[in-house]
């Protein structure tokens, strides 16, 4: 019994000891894990320090070698004794007195200068502000204020120049006094080449503590600890290309404009800024963290968080390109997307479509738009033959027509007529916007339809009316009204309908067939279900107040009336920050990654794939387009960015300042509504960037030249031909295209006596002016004009202008041809352009030569003599 007890008590002791040891071991493990396992950044920071040390050490060694090569300590000692002697001279009483006196003078002069400079800066600031409002509103009292300010500026500028000169003189005397010592010192410094600083750098970088590096943004309580591992991300130089030590790519754009200390990392990159234990957690690629890190180009989606206007934003190129897709496919037609409320319908008006197209074509188009042409933007709705017929029946009945086809090949027009039409087609540059046979369509943002098979689609009567005045059928179309005569239009129609035929087209309804009422009703239901009215204007659906009962039963709530424009699709304004749990992965829950980006991409790839009953059509986007669109959608967030980060768009700024946005008024508005100049040109922020910005064309171009050009746009051809193909100017290679001839000058503008060309010229001369561009250049009276021209020519040769510009046949092809520049541009524009070319075109390649004012006057005078004696 006693023995047994002893045994069990010693067993108990063993158990006791065993568990004590286990608990101790666990405690040790906990301490070790907390110190190292959970703090991986320590390892990174130590490694980084070693790398940095090596690099600095190498720098230092190189400097030491350099020092030895340039003479070493012996030379240094020599220089130092030389310096001692020189300083002795400088320290003499006479020199010291002189030095003190000069210094006092210098101080006074500098103070005066600073004061004047500040005054000048203030005045210029005021001027710019007034000038901005003036260009916006064109009110004369602004102009008056500007003149007053300009006078003050001139006075002060003169004063500044004088004071500057005085200061320079004193400076010169001072430096003469100290030049010897300064010279020796700089020699010593050059020899040492920052030797000591380099050594100090090594010690100070070794002393940097290993610790969590954190950027704390107090007002949103954001703590970004990314730099604990990405230790070199904002470094001045690249220490190592290895992750996580690299520098931020393109930091001169991103970091220089977004100080990391103020912005942190996760506003742009998302991810879990607080996490420090593993890369997965920090990058947010873990469960229960909805914001995975954005990498590479995808990060540009974050620009949308703060920048109200990303047009032209540097570093946002990818996202700018991607946003264009929203306009291209008209996502806003069905989905509510803030910022796109006022963008027009993406599809053409269908109110009278029955009078326009063949019934057979409509069916084939409804079933598969890409079958007709591959660049079609309309998505595939997966309609059955039956459904397509019902929809077409509704549309045709609303146009008051029956099911009918017209086979344009049946009537053969006169060959001469076709020939005339063909010439007109070329002359009118139809291919600028429209693709035929895979060619043309350079102005892509107009999204003009491919006309390769149009002859099998529309009937001739409609086409005639359309070309005659497109606004009648489709108010708001981008198609301009070319002022063709009826005869010319006949020729064009004959050419188009015979040339552009679809060989495979069917014409089932050459004998018209009546439409059944049941089919119409069914078509209407389908149109309402799929929301065709989102993109197209439809007859009978202009205001969707009346609701078909069958739809209400299905619980559809996208009905539209005058007050409330509910969109058929889901609101997208915060899709980029929608909790993943709210996304319905449906059937694909287990087959695709359950994250937001994958959801969006899959939705774009196969809109109806998640479950039955979805209505979104398939746009059949290319994988690249899917990626781009997903990137944009990912940027639509409701994330709360502090207001101080927000960069309002130009429009918002104008709204805040109470400046109305620019609108065309008067007679010119009528012309532009017809000719659609803004399809290609931008005027005061309105329009496209396909052709040159003509906001200030009135100041830039000479009236006579404009008139000639509008009458015969071909004449610019020799100039534009020489635009470089490698696209240095704007990144977009321009093919040999010129402005179409709109036949201006033949007709009078509605309700006026003026011809349209006069209206245009008048508008250019009155409105499209820049206060920056003077009418005339200043004269220099001391030299005669021929002398000035000669000097200008000298300068032209001297500065090597001909390397890029061509006069006659002489010179390079990078810049515009200057052969006829004297006829084309105003002298004021040339003068100002030479001063600062970037002012007029931000991305211009022309270097700034820093011409003085007289030089600019000479050059302008010379260039104005370059005139081609036109016919």
């Amino acid at each position, binding site marked *: 019994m006693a023995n047994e007890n002893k045994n069990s008590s010693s067993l108990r002791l063993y158990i006791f000891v065993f568990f004590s040891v286990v608990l101790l071991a666990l405690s040790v493990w906990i301490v070790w894990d907390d110190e190292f396992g959970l703090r991986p950044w320590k390892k990174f920071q130590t490694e980084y320090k070693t790398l940095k040390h090596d690099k600095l050490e190498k720098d230092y060694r190189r400097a030491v070698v350099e020092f030895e090569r340039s003479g070493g300590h012996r030379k240094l000692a020599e220089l130092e004794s030389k310096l001692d002697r020189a300083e002795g001279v400088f320290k003499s009483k006479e020199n010291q007195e002189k030095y003190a006196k000069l210094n006092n003078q210098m101080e006074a002069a500098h103070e005066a200068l600073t004061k004047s400079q500040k005054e000048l800066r203030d005045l210029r600031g005021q001027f710019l502000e007034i000038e901005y409002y003036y260009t916006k509103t064109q009110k004369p009292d602004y102009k008056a204020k500007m003149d007053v300010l300009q006078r003050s500026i001139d006075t002060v500028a003169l004063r500044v120049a004088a004071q500057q000169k005085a200061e320079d003189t004193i400076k010169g005397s001072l430096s003469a006094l100290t030049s010897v010592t300064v010279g020796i010192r700089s020699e010593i410094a050059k020899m040492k080449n920052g030797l000591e600083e380099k050594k100090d750098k090594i010690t100070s970088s070794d002393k940097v503590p290993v610790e969590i590096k954190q950027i704390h943004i107090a007002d949103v*309580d954001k*703590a970004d600890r990314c730099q604990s591992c990405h230790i070199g991300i904002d470094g001045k130089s690249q220490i190592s290309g290895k992750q996580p030590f690299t520098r931020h790519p393109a930091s001169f754009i991103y970091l220089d404009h977004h100080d990391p200390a103020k912005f942190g990392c996760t506003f742009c990159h998302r991810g879990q800024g*607080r*996490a420090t234990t593993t890369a997965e957690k920090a990058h947010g690629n873990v469960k229960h963290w909805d914001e995975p890190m954005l990498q590479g180009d995808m990060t540009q989606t974050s620009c949308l968080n703060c920048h109200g206007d990303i047009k032209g934003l540097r570093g946002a190129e990818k996202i700018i390109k991607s946003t264009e897709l929203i306009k291209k496919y008209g996502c806003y037609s069905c989905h509510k997307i803030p910022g796109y409320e006022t963008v027009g319908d993406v599809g053409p008006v269908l109110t009278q479509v029955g009078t326009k197209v063949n019934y057979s074509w409509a069916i084939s188009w409804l079933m598969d738009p890409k079958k007709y042409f591959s660049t079609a933007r309309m998505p595939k709705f997966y309609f059955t033959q039956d459904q397509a017929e019902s929809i077409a029946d509704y549309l045709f009945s609303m146009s008051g027509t029956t099911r009918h086809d017209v086979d344009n090949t049946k009537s053969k027009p006169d060959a001469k007529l076709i020939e005339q039409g063909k010439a007109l087609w070329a002359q009118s540059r139809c291919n600028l916007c429209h693709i035929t046979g895979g060619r043309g369509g350079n102005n892509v943002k107009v999204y003009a339809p491919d006309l390769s098979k149009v002859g099998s689609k529309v009937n001739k009567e409609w086409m005639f009316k359309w070309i005659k005045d497109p606004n009648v059928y489709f108010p708001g179309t981008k198609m301009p009204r070319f002022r063709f005569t009826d005869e010319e239009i006949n020729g064009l129609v004959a050419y188009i309908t015979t040339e552009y035929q679809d060989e495979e087209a069917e014409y089932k309804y050459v004998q018209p067939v009546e439409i059944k009422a049941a089919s119409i009703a069914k078509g209407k239901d389908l149109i309402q279900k799929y929301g065709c009215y989102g993109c197209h204007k439809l007859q009978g659906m202009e205001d969707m107040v009346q609701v078909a009962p069958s739809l209400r039963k299905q619980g559809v709530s996208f009905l539209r009336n005058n007050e409330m424009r509910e969109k058929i699709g889901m609101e997208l304004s915060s899709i980029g920050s929608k909790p993943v749990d709210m996304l319905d992965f449906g059937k694909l829950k287990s087959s695709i990654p359950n994250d937001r980006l994958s959801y969006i991409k899959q939705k774009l790839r196969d809109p109806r794939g998640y479950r039955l009953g979805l209505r979104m059509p398939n746009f059949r986007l290319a994988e690249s387009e899917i990626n781009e669109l997903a990137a944009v959608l990912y940027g639509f967030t409701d994330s709360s960015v502090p207001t101080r980060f927000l960069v309002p768009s130009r429009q918002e700024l104008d709204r805040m300042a109470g400046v109305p946005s620019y609108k065309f008024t008067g007679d010119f508005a009528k012309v532009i509504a017809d000719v659609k100049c803004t399809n290609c040109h931008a005027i005061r922020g309105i329009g496209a960037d396909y052709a040159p910005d003509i906001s200030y064309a009135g100041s830039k171009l000479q009236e006579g030249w404009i008139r000639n050009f509008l009458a015969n746009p071909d004449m610019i051809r020799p100039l534009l031909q020489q635009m470089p193909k490698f696209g240095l100017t704007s990144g977009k290679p321009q093919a040999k295209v010129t402005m179409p001839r709109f036949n201006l000058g033949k007709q009078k503008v509605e309700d006026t006596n003026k011809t349209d060309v006069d209206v245009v010229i008048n508008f250019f001369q009155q409105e499209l002016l820049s206060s920056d561009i003077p009418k005339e250049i200043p004269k220099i009276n001391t030299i005669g004009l021929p002398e000035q021209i000669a000097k200008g020519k000298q300068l032209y040769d001297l500065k090597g202008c001909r390397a890029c510009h061509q006069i006659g046949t002489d010179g390079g092809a990078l810049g515009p041809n200057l052969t006829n520049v004297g006829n084309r541009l105003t002298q004021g524009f040339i003068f100002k352009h030479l001063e600062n070319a970037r002012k007029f075109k931000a991305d211009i390649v022309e270097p700034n030569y820093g011409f003085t004012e007289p030089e600019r006057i000479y050059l302008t005078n010379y260039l104005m003599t370059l005139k081609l004696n036109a016919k």
Partner: protein
Amino acid sequence: MKSLPEITDKVKKNLIWKSVFRRDYRNTVRDRAQAVFGNVFLHLHPVQVRESAVKLRFTWGMGGITLLAFIILVITGVVLMFYYHPSIDQAYTDIKDLEFQVPFGVILRNLHRWGAHFMVIVVMIHMFRVFMTGSYKAPRQFNWGVGVILLVLTFLLSFTGYLTPWDQLGFWAITVGTNMGAATPLLGYQGPFSEYLHITPYNDVRFALLGGAQVGGNALLRSYIWHCVAIPLVATILMMVHFWRVRKDGGISKPQK
């Protein structure tokens, strides 16, 4: 070089040692008794216990384990309170920081959470054991009642702690849990007969629990105070009663026929 007895002698024969331990332990009957009633922690026990009370198979040690779990929770809980603000702006990030920045934050939180779950389990098994051995029978009826209330308090301690991280899990668990309060007869706005007392969502039991009509900042503060102050206080008092009564009712129950 001194021998081991010499060193122990040196350590033990001074004022400090004696002030703490008072007497040498020589393993006599008197010393063994003195060790129990001279120690504030041990004097809950009688000097002598029945042999089967020492064996694990009778009590399973569940009551003691519950106390141990409670102590672990108090210690870890107090340390966690240093790093936590009961406000909806900070609570969640504080818990994140526990994981990512606070020294030993991860293990502290894990110990606290799993200790809490463990205590709930152990308390339930303790109740089962007491029932199975019929230990609630006379004279221990009252202490059984105290034990039941302690069980409920344990649930409530865990329940109030659920909300403190302010994450989806806690938020919705508390929402679901307190929604029951709204169904209280007479006093909950969804409960039967409440309309006769003019009960609305703004004056019912649930409102009192949450400090609002929804789970929000007030609910977080309330649950924090219940969790860290009020319930532990009540539970501690009841535990003292519980242990006291165990002694006074005759210690670990023994077969009575």
